[in-house]
Each structure stands twice: as C-alpha cells, then as structure tokens.
C-alpha cells in the first residue's frame, strides 16, 4: 500500500514537471533543453517504474 502511494506521488510529480518545466522554466529557450528534458523525464520514469515493479515482486 505504501509503495503504491509512493509510486502515485512520484508519478504525479513527474507528470506535473513534464507540463510545468517546458512551459515555465524552459519557456522560450532555443536549442536542445526542451527536447533533452522531455527525453530525460520519460527515461527517468521508465527507471522508476522498473524499480517499483522489482520492489513489488
């Protein structure tokens, strides 16, 4: 149960960041930052999912 709540919280935070960072912090910044941020965020989330699946085994 605790693990599930932690996963929910981490997921909500990451999704919020995927909206907020490019439209806030990186707004108007030309070049790779937005591309790199979204790619890194998705990759990080995949690692998180794998980690939680291993813990829940």
């Amino acid at each position, binding site marked *: 149960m605790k693990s*599930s709540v932690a*996963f929910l919280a981490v*997921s909500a935070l*990451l*999704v919020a960041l*995927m*909206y907020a960072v*490019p*439209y806030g912090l*990186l*707004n*108007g*910044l*030309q*070049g*790779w*930052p*937005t*591309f790199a941020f*979204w*790619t890194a*965020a*998705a*990759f990080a*989330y*995949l690692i998180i*999912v*794998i980690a*939680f*699946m291993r813990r829940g*085994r």
Partner: protein
Amino acid sequence: MDATLTYIAIAIFILVGTGIAWLSKRFLRKEAKDFYAASGRFGTVLASLSYAATTYSAFMFIGLVGMAYATGVGTLGFELVYLVGTLFLLYHIAPKYWTLHKKYGYITPAEVLSDRYGSGGVGVAVTLLSLVALIPYAASQVIGVAVAAEGASSGAVTFSTAVVIAIAVALLWAAIAGIWSVGLTDVFQGIVMVCTGVIMVCFVYWQGFGQRPLDLAALGSLSYVPSSTWTFANFVNMTLPWFFFAITNPQVVQRLFAPKTKEAQRGMITWFGIYGITFTVIVTLLGLMLRLMTADGAFPLIANRDAVTPTLLSMLPAWLSIIGLVAVIAASVSTIDGIILTLSSMTVRDVLRRYAKGVTQKAEIAVARITIVAIAIACTIFALSKPGFIVDLAVLSSSLLLPQVPVVIGMFVWCRGGKWTAVATIVAGFGVALALYLLKASPLDIPANVWTIAASTLVYVAAAAIEGKTEGAARFVEA
C-alpha cells in the same frame, strides 16, 4: 522508386508475414479464448513487441514525423506524455486485468466491465463506442500506408490500390490464427519498424548534416514551447486522451490478457517502455532534422504535414525507400489487424452472445471471421473517403473513447455504481466529446477533452452515489 520495385517490396513483406501467420496456426487451440487472448500463453518477447507494434502505428511514421516537422519539439512532449501515462496505467492496471482474466476467463475488455457493472448492456455500450471511435482510427492507419506508397512510388501505386492491399493483409493476418497470427506478425513488424527508424534517422543525419552537430536552436520557436501550435491549452487538450490510451483503447487492453505469467507482464511493460522511448525519439528527431534541412535548402518546404514522410521516401535511395515503405506498412498493418481482431471479439462476445444464446465455440470463431471481414470493409470505405489529418483522426478517436476513463478506474477503486452508472457515464461523455468536436468549441477556454473527462467523471460519481454498492464489485477492487 518505380512501381515494379514497390510492388516487389510489398509482395516480399506480405509473403514473409503470411508465412509467419501461417506458422502461428500450430499454436492456436480451437477455442475463442485462444483465438482472441492466446489463453494467456505469450512470453515476454511476444507480449512486449506485440503490445508495442499494436500501439505504435502509421501515426508514428507518417503523423508524428510530419507533426514534428510542422510544429516542432512540442510533438516530442505530446508523445512522451502518452508514454509516461501508459507506463503509469500499466503499472497499476495491467496486473489487475491479468488476474481477472486468469480467474474468470474474460476475453474482451467489455466483458470485464459488463461483469463489474452487472449488465451485458454495459458491454454493448462499450462495444458500440469502440466501433464508432476505432473505425476512423484504423482507417487513419490505412491512409498512412496509402499516402506513403503513393508518395514513395511517385504516384505509380495509387491511393486506392494501397488501401485495398493494406486492409487485405490486415484481414488475412487477423483471420488466420487470431491473436497468434497477429502477435507473431507484430514481432516481425515491430522489429522492422524500429530498425528502419534507426537506419533512416542515421542516413538522414549523415546525408543532411555530415559531421556537423545538430543545432536545434536553428529551428527557432520550433525548438521550444509554447509555440503557435503548442499553446499550453492545446498541449493539455492533445495529451489528455493520449495519457489514458492504455485503458480506453480495447485493442491494447485485450493484450494485457496475453502474458503467461506476471513476470512476463512485467517484462512486457519494461521492454515496451524501452521500445517506446527509442521509437518516439527517433521519429521526432527525423521530423526535426528534415525541418532543419528545409532551412538549409536540402529538403523541400512541405505544407501538408502528412506528405513529409512520403516526400522523404521519394528522395531516398531505392533500397532505403523500399525499407521505409515496408516499415510504414508494418506499422499500419500491425495496428489495424489488432483493432479489427478486438472489435470482432467485442462484437461477437459482447453483442452477439447477449442476443443469441447457446452459440458453440466453432460457430463463434466462424462469426468472428465474418465480423473481421465486415469491419475491414467499413475501414476501407472510411479510408477511401480520405478524411482529415492522420494525427487529428487519431486524437479524435481517443477523445471519443475518453468517457470510459472513470468507468475503468472506478471499477478498480470503488464498489459503488452499477449498469446505469456505467451507461450514463459513457453516453454523457460521448455526447459532450462529440458536441464539442463538431462545434469546435472550448467553453471558458478550457480544452474540450478536459470538459469531456470532467463531465463523464461527474456523471459517474453522481450516478454511483445514487445507485449504491453493486454485488460482486469487491473482487474487482481486490484484484
């Protein structure tokens, strides 16, 4: 690339795929459960590549490349939010669907909902909704193939011929051995898709940029958000239905029944995630590189975004153009046959069996095959009418499926609500989605899809509160 070469390439692809589909018959047991859900016998590789190939379609090779070219980096965010949403939902919901399938033998996603909400009428409503929403989506895949074939062969292969070929192949591969032929050809197609993507992006980089580093800053406002297309409201509107794709699209939900163990399912989620990130980054990068090449004068300026990939295919060396075209066909067929198979299973299991009792397993598979043909014909007619942009069609389909979100999530977290709750939610949400789409309206500047999900959730909560607890609902919450 001339017409003969194009036809030879397509013929080789069809022969190899049909060979694989035919071989898959040896795995098929003569029962509906096996025809549609593999009786839960897929290993990790089969489950993950099948899930990936069903999910990633012509939308990626044609729609997303063109969208990145025309609208910039926001396309990457749009597709990666989908991926994150899917991983999130798979983590929570995939094990539940798998457990329910193993315990109660469900074959279609609508059967699960019918049982939870206590009425076959719920399954009928979900099936009708899926038919209305997914036939345009399947047709958009066919349009992708047809546009690519027409462009790559410089018009030698006509749009109509390509539509008929794509539908016929999808039909054949779905009918031969159901999920087994679809799944095994998906593995073949999934590998073709990602390998071709890598080869194409490397080739375009090598040809267009040589040793130069890619300077995305040269794209100006296309390298960041917000932009004229990717306003925050539009980003939310586009990503919202996509975020929930994994629970609203029955062709992918049905795939959750297929893994043989929970371990295989976890492997499926992991490998799907790796595949998804790789494929998304590749196709988006391809679109952005082509846009940079347009600025350099090395690639023509394309006004119609769905024409970007076909134009690229027509400019590549013949060998790569052929591989590229085959990959587009693979991406489309692997999605269409999955959709056709799932819609057929829902029509037979959730509609036909409700009104025709005592149907034998053999008769059920025979009717399923007839339904597969009928759905394929409907997709052909829709595709030949050449409606809208591929991405827009795909997003419209997902918007129409959005009202299922509270019904599916509610099933796993709440014991309240029965048949009236489910049907009222679907009808109200569908009505709102359709009305806002037709009126092109976003009241109070709030994206239409937010209204759809808000309205359906509100109706769900209110109706469930009135209807009260449903008998047997606890086993879905505890799954």
